[in-house]
């Protein structure tokens, strides 16, 4: 509750966005059932979660710079990468929990509660999605430090991912030439695994691809943060204050 009070944007990504998307899908289309309902719920969950990750996680270092603590952050006793990872994890977990609760409550209110046949694997999928979001948030927040237009970039990244991941709109609706781009979006595999787990037939190849992309994002995050560190402390070309 304190997090939500302190950052009203959590309400946008965690409550408002998933609620409105579910209302649109349910009332424009009619009641989805079974696997369709699970697909819609996980799609909305992941979309709202991705939106929060891009807005909250990716803004961590920019916020440090805005309030004047970035220099201390980079020169602290603890490894800045460790602190950043912790902050990114916090920025991922809070919206993930809020969004999950919102989607679950909305599905009940819309009289379409989802039954999860493999709850254990479903939780594993959610945790993997959160870790993947954490890695991505860490990567983006390092990149966004290089430009003062991070806000615009954050917002520009939302819809390409929603479209390419095939969350609410199946990739078959797009030209064949661009469908392969969705392979690099972890949300696609997260949804595939979560839907399969809810049906009791976990798709482990999707989980493996989700894990692989998480590792790729994490390596890219570490590399880009080292680059930021180099620019700031060795070359002195990145303003920290």
């Amino acid at each position: 509750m304190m997090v939500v009070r302190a950052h009203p944007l959590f309400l946008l990504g965690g409550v408002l966005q998933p609620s409105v998307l579910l209302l649109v899908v349910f009332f424009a289309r009619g009641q989805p059932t079974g696997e369709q309902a699970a697909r819609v719920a996980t799609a909305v969950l992941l979309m709202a979660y991705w939106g929060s990750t891009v807005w909250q996680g990716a803004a961590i270092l920019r916020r440090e710079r805005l309030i004047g603590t970035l220099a201390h952050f980079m020169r602290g006793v603890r490894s800045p990468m460790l602190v950043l990872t912790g902050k990114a994890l916090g920025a991922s977990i809070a919206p993930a929990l809020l969004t999950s609760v919102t989607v679950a409550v909305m599905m009940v209110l819309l009289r379409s509660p989802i039954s999860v046949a493999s709850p254990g694997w479903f939780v594993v999928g959610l945790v993997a999605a959160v870790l993947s979001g954490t890695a991505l948030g860490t990567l983006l927040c390092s990149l966004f430090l290089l430009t003062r237009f991070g806000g615009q970039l954050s917002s520009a990244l939302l819809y390409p991912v929603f479209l390419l991941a095939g969350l609410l709109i199946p990739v078959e609706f797009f030209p064949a030439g661009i469908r392969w781009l969705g392979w690099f979006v972890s949300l696609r595999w997260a949804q595939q695994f979560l839907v399969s787990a809810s049906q009791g037939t976990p798709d482990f190849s999707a989980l493996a691809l989700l894990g692989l992309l998480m590792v790729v994002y994490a390596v890219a995050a570490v590399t880009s943060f080292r680059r930021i560190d180099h620019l700031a402390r060795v070359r002195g070309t990145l303003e920290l204050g």
Partner: protein
Amino acid sequence: MSWADASDRVVLAAKIGLREHLADNPLSVTLSTTWPRALLQCLFFTMLGRVIGGADGQAYTFVGSIAITITLFTLVQICDVPMRDRWSSTFYRIRSSEMPVPLVYAIRSWPLLVEGALVAVLCILLVGLFTVQFALMLQLLALVPIYLLLVLTSGAAGLTAASVALFGRAGNDVFVGNLGQYLIIAASGALIPPGRVAWLDAIGSVLPMRHGLLAIRSNLAGEPWLAHLLCEVVVGLCWGLAAVLLYTYMARRIRRNDHDKVT
């Protein structure tokens, strides 16, 4: 203040509005991030309609998605116009000027209104082409004047929302603008046809876009549409009046008490 003075001030406010807008959103950034995001959002909601209701659903959401895209500029980004004075601690200059506060912000918002209109036209052309809706695309191009009216009415609502953001807690600007946009997505009839959810219809009837979209859809169906258009004008005027009253009241309260965070 003479007419010549007044017109000079209006021109100056318009120039400052453009300079501020370009400083925060250089053309290269606008063309590479903001406009593509707007077009992709329109494409997303249009294709969602196709998934939900086939070709008819896609045509329905295409008309509404263009209106939703306009709100990116007239509801979300417009909050930045007065907020720049809060961030720079320059609001005291605005409230002590001879021009009324709401008029200053209305004039400074013009680049966003123009952007909203341009992007609406681009959405009709590009999303129409991508989703192969050529006939509807041509029909909508003829109805661009109604979309221009929607730019103005939603801009009036955006300025009202911005006044709440300006005098509220820090960070409220993003929240209030986005809240307005989500309300319009859910209740304006852009995606969910009117008559399906009573409480959404009730909310939507006082929001901008709702009646204008009904006018567009009625026009497309060959039905009478002027009454809907007049309703949209009335709703827009009400939001404009609300903005005038809120800015005037807040500015007077700050002048009298001198205790607000907005300086």
